[in-house]
């Protein structure tokens, strides 16, 4: 009796340590994933089906991925960083955490969609927009905001939500956009007012404000257009999307190979796959804008040329992230 217990115990120890005999034969790719679980699952299952490679991923926001990759730099636990705005990837590249790789694509990837040394590549894009609850607008008799200063209007007092710039790529891009439009001091002045008058609360994840708007927990949220469509409009929430006419920023979704990761070859395969027409067509479901010109764009998606974009400098935003965030924290105190 004692011996059987001992054997059972040893078996449990083995399983928990992740040792699964026979697994060694099957190929496994470890990924850090910045897409939401549901969406990530959608793309990854497609990849697994097509290639037969098993993917094990950990889902975190892009800020968290950056932090994890930095912490693990001596012994990286994943090979690929999938999604998340490229500002974080840029930051990581500047810290030497990424392994440059030029993916095999059937089109030319333009210069603003990649690092100069191919440390990271962009594989989707989207502009920053506002999402507002239509019931609220009707009740209050106001129009959805169409400029940044509209957000300061007393109609939306204590009724706006977005993520912390230091936990979410979405919010950081918003902040960096304002800094690039008005300079650091003026941007912080504006934000101080914004924080005092309009903010209801900050969320952790970039898309957290969208369902909040949908449920009328808050009136207005700030997020990327594809998320607003996928998580707000298409889910059936009573929301409407607008853009600031004075200019808005946009994100490029990043993809990179982590330096020293456990499966570099499989990682490269994954990155290549992300640029294929098949993979890029998958973006239709989530209203993301593909970078492969041969891919189809979903009806209703707002393409970048339909919005007034500022000349957003991703590289600068990425490299100065720490400085900008510290300034924000010091001024806003949160």
């Amino acid at each position, binding site marked *: 009796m004692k011996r059987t217990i001992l054997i059972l115990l040893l078996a*449990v120890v083995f399983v*928990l*340590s*992740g040792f699964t005999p026979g697994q060694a034969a099957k190929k496994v790719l*470890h990924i850090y994933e910045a897409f*939401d*679980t549901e969406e990530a699952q959608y793309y990854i299952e497609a990849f697994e089906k097509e290639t037969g490679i098993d993917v*094990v*991923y*950990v*889902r*975190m*926001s892009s*800020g*968290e991925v*950056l*932090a*994890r990759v*930095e*912490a*693990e730099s*001596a*012994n990286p*636990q994943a090979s690929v960083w999938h999604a998340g705005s490229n500002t974080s990837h840029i930051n990581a590249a500047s810290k030497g955490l990424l392994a440059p790789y030029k993916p095999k694509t059937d089109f030319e990837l333009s210069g603003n969609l990649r690092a100069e040394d191919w440390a990271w590549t962009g594989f989707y894009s989207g502009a920053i927009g506002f999402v507002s609850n239509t019931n609220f607008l009707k009740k209050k008799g106001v129009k959805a905001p169409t400029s940044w200063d509209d957000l300061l209007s007393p109609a939306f007092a204590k009724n706006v939500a977005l993520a*912390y710039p*230091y*936990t*979410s790529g979405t919010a950081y891009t918003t902040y960096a956009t304002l800094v690039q439009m008005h300079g650091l001091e003026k941007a912080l002045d504006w934000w101080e007012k914004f924080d005092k008058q309009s*903010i*209801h*609360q*900050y*969320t*952790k*994840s970039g*898309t*957290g404000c*969208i*369902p*909040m708007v*949908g*449920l*009328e*927990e*808050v009136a207005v949220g700030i997020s990327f257009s594809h998320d607003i469509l996928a*998580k707000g409009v298409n*889910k*059936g*929430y*009573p929301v409407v999307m607008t853009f600031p006419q004075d200019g808005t920023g946009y994100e490029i979704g990043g993809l990179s190979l982590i330096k020293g990761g456990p499966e570099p070859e499989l990682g490269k395969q994954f990155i290549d796959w992300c640029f294929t027409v098949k993979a890029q067509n998958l973006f239709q479901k989530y209203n993301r804008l593909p970078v492969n010109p041969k891919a189809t764009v979903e009806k209703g998606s707002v393409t970048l040329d339909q919005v007034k974009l500022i000349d957003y400098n991703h590289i600068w935003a990425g490299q100065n992230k720490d400085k900008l*965030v510290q300034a924000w*924290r*010091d001024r806003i*105190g*949160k």
Partner: protein
Amino acid sequence: MAKQGSNRQEILANLRLIWKEPLLLVSILAIFYFLLVFVVYPIFLVFKTSLIVEKQFNFSNYLAIFSKRYFYQPFLNSMILGACTAFTGTFLGFTFAYAITRTPIPFKRFFRLAATFPIISPPFIVSLAAILLFGRSGSLTPFVQKIIGEYSIYGLGGLVLVETIAYGPIAFLVLHGVLQAIDPALEEAAMDLGASRIRVFFTVTLPLAIPGIASAWLLVFIESMADFGNPMVISGDFRVLSVQAFLQITGMYDLSRGSTLAILLLAPTLTAFFIQKYWVSRKSYVTVTGKPTGATIRGVEWYIKLPAYASCFLFTGIIFLFYGMVIYGSFQTLWGVDSTLTLRNYVMMFKVGKDYIVDSLILSTLATPATGILGMFIAFLVIRKKFIGRRIMEFVSLLTFAVPGTVVGIGYILAFNQRSLMFPFILTGTAWIIVILLIFRNMPVGIQSGIAALQQIDPAIEEASSDLGADSNKTFIKITLPMIAPAFFSGLAFSFVKAMTAISAIIFVVSGRWNLITVAVLGFVDNSQYAQAAAMSLILILIVLLALGIIQMMVNRIGKGARSITVVD
């Protein structure tokens, strides 16, 4: 000279006794090692990290505490929240306990059951229910707005409401025990001498209960400060330390500042713990031996009945309302938008959420017996054996009770992210770190119930076993364990519940491969997917109830003959 020599001879002799039992010696050393590595070391690392800024050792974080709003604001907020909740929770717990022990209120067992419900469910379910009821699109919001106008459930008010419901039962349990143990003869004597009921209350009952009240206050304070799940859901812009520390670490990976916030969180809770354990509980005039003395209950005047009954009915009503809401919410299609009832959420749970459920069950089931046995063994060593460092062992093993989960979680990722002299394995990403975290976090539960059970046993019985030739381990296994079996199993039950509902420490150490139900629920709430959160929460509660039922059945089967006989002739 003689005195010094005497102590040394005794100490040496005690040591020699332990030496003669190698198994015991090894066990003691092993436990010291585990406590050092899994309890002390992580906390120490948090402290050390808070002193390292830009890879240099300095105090700048602590100097910044008073100047940087993002430090002192959360600290003040947490303290205010803690104090408010402590007052409301203790008041509620006291009136409830008074109603049950001193008035002829009907359905006592039912009320007591309802009161303990929040203890066995994950604490942030109450927040979830609050949003479903009183949020912007809450079911009761229109009615409440008619009464008090515009309001927001997010923030300090909502948090106090929610935490009072979640932690008031803890105060209730403490105060119930205290009121039960006050000798009814004292109150009867006062009445005999002419005192009215009110006078008896203010001159006899209340003064005797004050140490208990202070204890309850401190315990609720600690729980509120350490609360992570509820503030994550419902704090709005009212930032508290636990959440801020979490965001610093996982959002910015600012270990230095995150650790500082964690230390700011640790200081008040540790202080409260010390005050409670080493000062307040010593001042008790009332020894809670677990033997209810059965206070006499008389027909009571209306001015006593009214507040007491009101408190009971109100609180129980709220519990039913809240948990009922969660059940109702779980069947909705899209909360706040589409309220057609559906089973879709549960179907999704079993498809997508199946992994979370299985993981939670596996990890909790692994951790629970270890918690129980380890806790029981440490209780045995601390109470029955004499060796150097015994008091230290007791203190350290109870320490995790006072340390907020946030601090422990951060400590664990700091400690086990790389190999070190203390511990040559990397644990992050494995199941082990989760299991070990659960074991050492919940160990105080096992130890406390072990100590209580052991104190009921006549030490002569264990001495008799030793006298007849059994060494310490044999005595423990053949004599002690069977006799404390009922207490052991209830300790197991409680540990399992705590393991399944853990969130504040666990959230730091979950990884791609191993994930827990509570983390999934928080994720749903984060995305405002309230119906799914409700469904998952309900499944969790059902699992916990099932486990409790099974353990209760086992206790009933094993309980025969395990009571100590009292010699009465």
